[in-house]
């Protein structure tokens, strides 16, 4: 293996699993902070790697509605867990973001400190999944619709690259195949890895998506791929699709639109805690709240934007009261926005099929099961 193959955008390379630390180092050498999967507090979360950190080896996750367990195996495989509770969104719009600070001066004057002027750090996100890439594509529309854009988001976005991995072992909660977002990364990556392991070999197929990705590959020992490598990678994806247990019912957008008064909304509201976990872990939920915080002396005010959720009462507050009082109306807002009205608003689905909301719901409410129940009792059949 050498680093001198001249692999270009669109090519695929193969690197030994033992070269993964070199890949991480190459990202640092290219000037990126590396953000990657880390086993912490019983889950896989994205965190910033220190100089000695590398990808965790031999972990599997077991996920079900309301249940997540991380299992350490004796194996050498690197990516046999999938998405954890944290998505990429916190790196692009943090849970709590000061917007500006105003200070009182003498004689009725005041000054305003503009938002943090620092340029965003260059970051490489390693081990992200196809559904994470799909979520970023959704978020790009949310934070820049052509007329209005969030400058802080765009700055962070411009300086980010993504090293994705195709999932070989989806969790029981995943349903990306039915949302056409995975398990294979089809766009939005700089490099896309597929883990190829058998008794004799343990290598990674690396698809090169961008110039930035090609530069990184050029720093790591590799060879160009041959047809048999691509064949093995295709088999990994085929097997992952076959293993996927959950799916979204087809035609969900229109289905929800014509079932606004379906009795299932009441049934799910008896279980729903309106805790907001589903929206917090969802990689595309973007709602936020803006509040002013004053100092005791009243001389300093900071305006802060923080994550909010349509499951909070204040989310629907208009002068005089909140519109969505019942848990029923809040659950319905969430599900119809994710799967239906998001299309009207942004021209895509707000759901990528990552399954996080299923796993991290404290009482295991499953958006695919709710959709199926509504489909089965469809109030008005679709027009012919």
């Amino acid at each position, binding site marked *: 293996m050498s680093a001198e193959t001249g692999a270009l955008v669109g090519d695929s390379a193969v690197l030994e699993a033992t070269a993964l630390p070199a890949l991480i180092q190459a990202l640092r050498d290219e000037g990126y902070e590396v953000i990657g999967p880390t086993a912490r507090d019983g889950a896989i*979360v994205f965190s910033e790697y220190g100089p000695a950190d590398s990808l965790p080896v031999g972990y599997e996750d077991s996920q079900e509605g309301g249940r997540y367990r991380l299992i350490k195996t004796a194996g050498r495989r690197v990516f046999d867990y999938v998405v954890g509770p944290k998505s990429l969104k916190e790196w692009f719009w943090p849970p709590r973001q000061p917007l500006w600070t105003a200070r009182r001066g003498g004689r009725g004057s005041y000054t305003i400190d503009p938002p943090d002027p620092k340029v965003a750090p260059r970051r490489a996100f390693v081990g992200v999944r196809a559904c994470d890439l799909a979520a970023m594509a959704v978020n790009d529309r949310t934070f820049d619709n052509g007329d209005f854009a969030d400058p802080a988001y765009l700055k962070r976005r411009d300086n980010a690259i993504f090293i994705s991995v195709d999932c070989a072992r989806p969790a029981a909660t995943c349903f990306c195949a039915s949302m056409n977002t995975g398990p294979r990364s089809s766009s939005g990556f700089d490099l896309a890895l597929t883990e190829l392991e058998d008794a004799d070999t343990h290598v990674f197929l690396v698809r090169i998506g961008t110039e930035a990705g090609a530069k990184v590959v050029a720093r790591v020992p590799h060879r160009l791929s041959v047809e048999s490598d691509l064949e093995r990678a295709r088999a990994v994806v085929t097997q992952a699709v076959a293993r996927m247990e959950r799916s979204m019912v087809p035609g969900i957008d229109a289905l929800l639109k014509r079932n606004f008064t379906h009795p299932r909304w009441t049934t799910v509201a008896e279980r*729903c805690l309106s805790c907001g976990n589903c929206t917090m872990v969802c990689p595309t939920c973007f709602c936020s709240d803006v509040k002013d915080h004053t100092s005791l002396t009243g001389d300093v005010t900071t305006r802060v934007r923080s994550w909010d959720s349509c499951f909070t009462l204040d989310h629907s507050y208009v002068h005089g009261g909140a519109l969505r009082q019942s848990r029923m109306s809040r659950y319905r807002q969430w599900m119809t926005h994710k799967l239906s009205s998001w299309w009207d608003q942004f021209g895509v689905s707000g759901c990528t099929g990552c399954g996080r909301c299923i796993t991290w719901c404290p009482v295991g409410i499953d958006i695919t099961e709710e959709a199926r129940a509504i489909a089965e009792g469809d109030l008005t059949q679709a027009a012919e």
Partner: protein
Amino acid sequence: MAGARKPRLAVHKFASCDGCQLTLLDCEDQLLDVVGEIEIAYFLEATRQEIRGPYDVSLVEGSITTAHDIERVRRVRAQSKMLIAIGSCATAGGVQALRNTADIDALARAVYPNPEYFQTLTTSTAIQDHVKVDFELRGCPISREQLIEVVSAYLTRRKPNIPNYSQCMECKQAGTVCVMVAHGTPCLGPVTQAGCGNVCPSCERGCYGCFGPKEKANAKSLARWFEGSLGLSGRQTHDLYRTFNAGAPAFCEVGLAAIGEKTDETVAEVTR
């Protein structure tokens, strides 16, 4: 506001442990700013100086457990422009509200050698059960940050930023891995109001519910999950729900139901 009189603050105590009042003294970094903006007129825990009412703001700690308390809290109300109930005792009757569903005479006989000298109500109730309360700060004890927040909001005449959503929102914003989903630890966070600063889950403990029920808390659904999926007994579910906010209606009712006791009329009345 040159020449303007500083607002007068009073701190009153009923049946409680003093922990919430101490939170005010614990605001070391901000205390100087506080006394710069506010005249502390009545605060026995901190100063022997007593300035008589009326007060602009009264912080009221503790629950109502005697006939004398009822008289006194009415006087406090009459003397206060704004009354803020602080802590689980003042907002839900505290842990001592366990007596509301127990035999108070039996308890008195078990604790006091001469129970005939002991005069008490059969219930421990929140301040708002007796007088109008303008704002509630939850917690056992209350959070320092929230206390500073209501005081600064009062001084700048704005609405305090005190969320009434779940503790889970705080977990997720802090990046805490959910102890219930990832470890199977029972946690009251989904039905408990945020504001403590994510104390327990960030130490891998389940939330004990000391900030009391969130708005529209669905304690029943969570109890079903505890027993059906986490394997808790009805007694364990009861004990979880009936601690610092034992008298809070949303927790009391579901806690009692978990041990097969119905909330009878009197309890329902007391716990509203």
